[in-house]
């Protein structure tokens, strides 16, 4: 397949965005694709800037390049005094130097607008429908919520985009994931995205770009849609996206870097053409009924290890092929016995934050569960807003008070525990109810055990001291 669509033939949303960005197409379908927004953080960019310098190249479009440190930054107030870890400090200093030298749009560590790159982009209006957005970070998929084609790239490709504002790409296949009907109470965007991965597996999306659609997706807020698209990569897809609608336009309108006036009107009229045509070709279709999705948690060390909270820890023999050994290894790492009801698994820590669930609605949802309650004895909790502006907003609403009254630490913005590149880490054997996106071995700290779930489920687990069904808490409060 050459990825070339016949003129006039029905196209998917992905086809339309791809076609609109083709700079050059070879006969074998290899394309040079124009990149509208390039987001840069400190971990995957230093070698790319070094490469530019060594070749005597410049950043082609500094005006379309946005830099923000997030992975290494401490989330404690003393970070104004600098980063203690020498290597982390050097990486952030390198980004600072590169951003200033090449004239990038830059949000330094102590700027109130700093935060996780995937939260800052949409918040500042850099991410807009129909754009191509890349970053040296796999969770770039987040921006697909706007009907943008957004995906992670490696450092060599970061250098390629810096130098040429393009990427060499071949068209992926089209996959439709439809979530029909309504969600039940206590079920959130996080449960949708985990349930999809549970169904398709972590390699189910390999070679595809996913478009999420259906009533349950349309009903989600923009923030919920970002949560869904964020984890498209965990399902193996190159990108996940959702067709823009009035909610998308309302979200973008008035943001610092969104178009204004006549440019806004022109943009919206193009954005309204961004949907999959009737009769467009899908290489794969997955349909899930919204009402069949329960609040879910992960039990293992792969995001596909998903079960409803009402389930029990599986046994290796429940699986086939290479997954048998992987499950055995996971259970050993996680310290879990087959047959244990998931809602009896005790936890030591709760982490609320990350590019998956670190936005204001996530904090509101968790605070709604925690109000007037307290973490169970022996459980530590950390809330890390996704950006400085999310933090400010939460404080204006008094959410910080709810969290601290409940025994949580209220932190500054950053990636924090989601990947332990900064001081926020789990100790070996420590078990955490986390709103982040990866439960890999060692991800949150060597030996740390991660159970992925939604903000309300994490909050409920914190109160109970073990994984628990948030619907029981909701029933009590009604």
């Amino acid at each position, binding site marked *: 397949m050459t990825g070339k669509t016949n003129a006039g033939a029905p196209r998917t949303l992905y086809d339309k965005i791809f076609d609109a960005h083709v*700079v050059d197409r070879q006969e074998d379908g290899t394309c040079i694709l124009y990149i509208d927004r390039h987001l840069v953080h400190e971990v995957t960019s230093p070698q790319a800037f070094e490469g530019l310098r060594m070749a005597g190249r410049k950043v082609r479009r500094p005006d379309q390049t946005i830099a923000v440190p997030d992975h290494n930054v401490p989330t404690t107030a003393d970070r104004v005094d600098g980063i203690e870890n020498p*290597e982390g400090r050097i990486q952030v200093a390198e980004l600072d130097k590169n951003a200033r030298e090449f004239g990038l749009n830059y949000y330094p560590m102590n700027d109130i607008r700093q935060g996780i790159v995937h939260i800052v982009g949409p918040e500042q209006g850099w991410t807009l429908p129909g754009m191509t957005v890349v970053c040296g970070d796999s969770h770039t998929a987040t921006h697909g919520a706007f009907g943008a084609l957004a995906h992670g790239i490696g450092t060599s490709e970061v250098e390629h985009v810096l130098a040429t504002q393009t990427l060499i790409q071949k068209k992926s296949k089209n996959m439709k994931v439809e979530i029909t009907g309504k969600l039940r109470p206590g079920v959130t965007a996080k449960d949708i995205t985990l349930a999809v991965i549970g169904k398709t597996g972590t390699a189910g999306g390999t070679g595809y770009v996913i478009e999420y659609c259906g009533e349950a997706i349309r009903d989600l807020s923009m923030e919920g849609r970002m949560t869904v698209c964020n984890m498209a990569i965990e399902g193996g897809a190159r990108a996940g996206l959702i067709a823009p609608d009035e909610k998308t336009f309302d979200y973008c309108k008035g943001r610092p870097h969104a178009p204004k006036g006549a440019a806004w009107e*022109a943009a919206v009229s193009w954005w309204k053409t961004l949907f999959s045509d009737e009769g467009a070709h899908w290489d794969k279709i997955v349909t899930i009924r919204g009402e069949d999705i329960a609040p879910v948690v992960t039990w293992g060390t792969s995001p596909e290890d998903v079960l409803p909270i009402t389930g029990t820890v599986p046994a290796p023999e429940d699986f086939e*092929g290479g997954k048998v050994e992987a499950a055995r290894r996971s259970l050993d790492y996680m310290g879990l016995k087959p047959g244990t009801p998931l809602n009896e698994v005790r936890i030591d820590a709760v982490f609320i934050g990350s590019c998956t669930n670190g936005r204001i609605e996530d904090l509101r949802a968790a605070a709604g569960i925690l109000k007037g309650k307290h973490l169970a004895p022996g459980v530590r909790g950390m809330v890390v807003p996704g950006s400085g502006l999310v933090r400010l907003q939460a404080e204006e609403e008094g959410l910080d008070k709810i969290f601290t009254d409940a025994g949580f630490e209220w932190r500054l913005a950053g990636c924090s525990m989601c990947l332990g590149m900064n001081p926020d880490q789990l100790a070996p054997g420590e078990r955490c109810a986390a709103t982040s996106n990866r439960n890999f071995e060692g991800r949150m700290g060597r030996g740390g055990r991660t159970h992925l779930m939604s903000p309300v489920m994490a909050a409920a687990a914190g109160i109970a001291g073990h994984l628990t069904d948030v619907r029981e808490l909701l029933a009590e409060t009604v």
Partner: protein
Amino acid sequence: MDKFTTLTGIAAPMPLVNIDTDMIIPKQFLKTIHRSGLGKNLFDEMRFNPDGTEVPDFVLNQPAWRDSQIIVAGDNFGCGSSREHAPWALLDFGIRCVISTSFADIFYNNCFKNGILPIVMPPEVVEVLMEDARKGANARMTVDLENLTVTTSDGQSFPFELDPFRRHCLLNGLDDIGLTMEKAPSIDAYETQMAQSRPWV
């Protein structure tokens, strides 16, 4: 980037599925601002105990596989993050080729930028190659990119497919950026047209 033409070497069997980039190179080693030197930390948490001593059972610690240049792996190798530190660590250790039934998309792309050849083979072939890899240092596997074949130590040969452009770049050690730079007039033209059609970008 080094060219890749043919490679004859020891293959390490790693049948585990979903070997993720956090396993290949854990996050604490991403703090470097260089590309080199990561080989000593390849598979760090599987390869070394917390006190720094080797985990004797781990395949790359066993005498027969310490000098592996090829890995035969379980499904979905390289899933997870976009960190190019994963192929950098593999390359620095001496791995030039990984064979599996499937690879995660970003990892797969990253390999080609570093002269590493990821080969997708059907499950039944991976099984045969896995068995061959288990023979260790007495068995050498041969990967021939020119002819697109993998040959076991006992002479069984299996064809594989690869995108012609990627093959061309790998065979010749070509730098993507240089190639794209030659298309600068097309990029200029695109930007001129974009200023009209999508001025808000």
